[in-house]
């Protein structure tokens, strides 16, 4: 019988640093993240932290929290949170409420692209152009009032600009296309055979919406709500142009602008901006928590 040849005991594998990093999920491709990270750090993280630091160093002294104390002790200033919420929440809800039925209808239409294009045009106009158009159209001498007056439906022009309604309408016009596009993409993601299956099981249109469409859409609607809300909450130009910036539409962005660029108190302006961010985070967190109670996952009906 042959003797079994001796083999020297293998040296324990010493993986190179590269191999170990790869196993942890870092490889050369990860480096492609660098520009984006740099971008975020320079243009977002740093300004946010700088703003936060600035807000803790009040211009007129009085301790770190002086700006925040000042903000929450003046009802004219902290009231802007309520004003902005009163504007942003209904605007977002109305936009969502309009988007869902229209998206459900458009999904089945043949000239979907044409209609979608028409609905999306307002988003390309920009706030200032929209405001300009609104001032002409909805103003006391605008077409809208003239037509209603010549039809003897009203005797005095209705006031639709330079007040809350003006900003509200402008936010609907500007925000709807955005909401609609998002909702349409979520709606088309729902397999139409699911609705057919529900119909075959005896569900009428309203029941199909309640039991099938809505639960499958919930997560998407929550995300749309958050994005649209954040956009509406930071309203600034339309609140000035078609609103009443010293009264009913004195939104929080105006308060921040006023502090920073009219009173030259950058520290206070930063504090207001930070507060604004927190309010947005609270609302978004709340909505995301509610949506986590619903089904999240693919809205398909199975294989195939």
């Amino acid at each position, binding site marked *: 019988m042959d003797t079994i040849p001796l083999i020297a005991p293998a040296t324990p594998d010493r993986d190179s640093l590269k191999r170990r990093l790869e196993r942890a999920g870092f490889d050369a491709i990860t480096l492609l993240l660098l520009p984006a990270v740099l971008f975020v750090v320079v243009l977002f993280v740093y300004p946010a932290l700088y703003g936060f630091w600035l807000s803790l160093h009040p211009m007129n002294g009085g301790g770190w929290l002086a700006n925040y104390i000042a903000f929450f002790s003046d009802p004219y200033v902290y009231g802007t949170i309520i004003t902005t919420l009163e504007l942003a929440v209904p605007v977002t809800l109305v936009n969502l409420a309009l988007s869902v039925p229209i998206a459900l209808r458009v999904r089945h239409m043949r000239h979907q692209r044409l209609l979608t294009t028409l609905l999306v045009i307002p988003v390309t106009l920009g706030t200032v152009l929209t405001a300009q158009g609104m001032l002409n159209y909805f103003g006391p001498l605008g077409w809208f009032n003239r037509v209603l007056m010549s039809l003897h439906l009203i005797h005095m022009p209705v006031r639709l600009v330079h007040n809350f309604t003006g900003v509200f309408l402008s936010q609907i016009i500007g925000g709807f296309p955005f909401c609609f596009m998002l909702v349409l993409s979520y709606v088309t993601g729902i*397999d139409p*055979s699911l609705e*057919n*299956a529900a*119909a075959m*099981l005896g569900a009428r249109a309203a029941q199909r919406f309640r039991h099938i469409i809505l639960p499958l859409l919930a997560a998407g609607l929550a995300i749309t709500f958050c994005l649209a809300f954040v956009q509406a909450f930071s309203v600034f130009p339309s609140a000035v142009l078609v609103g009443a910036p010293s009264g009913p539409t004195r939104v929080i962005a105006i308060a921040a602008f006023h502090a920073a660029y009219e009173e030259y108190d950058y520290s206070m302006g930063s504090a207001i901006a930070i507060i604004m961010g927190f309010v947005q985070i609270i609302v978004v967190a709340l909505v995301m928590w509610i949506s986590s109670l619903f089904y999240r*996952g693919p809205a398909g*009906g199975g*294989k*195939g």
Partner: protein
Amino acid sequence: MTISAKNFRELRLDHMRRDFGGMNALRDITLTIKRGEFIALLGPSGCGKSTALNCLAGLLPLSGGSIWLDDTRIDHLKPEERGFGMVFQNYALFPHMSLRKNIGFGLKMQKRPQAEIDAKVEEALALVRLSKQADKLPGQISGGQQQRVAIARAIVVEPPLVLMDEPLSNLDAKLRLEMRAEIRRIHNMIGCSTIYVTHDQDEALSLADRIVVLRDGQMRQVGTPQELYARPAHADVAEFMGYRNILKAEAETEQNGRLTMRLGGAKLEGFAVEPGHGREVIAALRPEDLTPANDGPIAAAVVSAEYRGRDFYGLARTQEGLDLWFRSELSVQPGEQLRLGAPAERVLVYAGAAA
């Protein structure tokens, strides 16, 4: 409490028609389906079989004709008012509901008492052998299980008619055979009528009481599996039923339906299926009936052959360039010269293009 189909005598389709923008997707479909019958709609893709099913379901409106359930006209009713069950090709299970809720959905829509819903769902789960998985979501079970849930969901509302749209096409071969038996077992147990759309002739032959062959939106033949297998009424039906050799031939003599034909240089005997054929005919025969024989009339060279367990199936080509599919019990090699022949009663003769 047991699940059993609602009572009815028959479902009648009367000259059912469906157009899509000027194109006839479905023409003149007239058919009576009795309670408890299993009907297969068989045809190649694009033949209108899914359209027919969707028209029956109410998911597509008819362009003409009518549908009757006993003495009630139902073609103007919405899907939710017809009360039929449907199993979709992709199952269409509600992804956000547990299997239990999926199956109970139809009963819930009928506003049945919760106790009754629970009992029936439990029974349906047992019927498709999924009681243990009842609280999972559809995404957490396998394709075969999803398919069974889809069936349970369709039958638990005790529909008079269950529509199935190629329900097995997404399953692997073994599971397909198992589910085939399962579908027939459930059909027999609840006593509904089933209309089953498929492009797979094996499935149709093994499941159905009657098969409806569709082509270009028209019914080409209706019959029992035996009838369709042995005597397809038209050459195109024959082709679809596994008569792989569809050969142009010239009729020479005929006696009591028995024909002698000239096929290139060879002579072939067969039986006429369609009366009134002309000189140009089409001979149809299955590969399994065309075998090598010393006195076979057709000389051909083997092009390729594949082993299929019991025997070999191959392709041979005659001198005139005619391709023939044949079966052989002995191994054959490409290039080998063979004489092929078929028993006359297995050769079906149809009218040719010029007739």
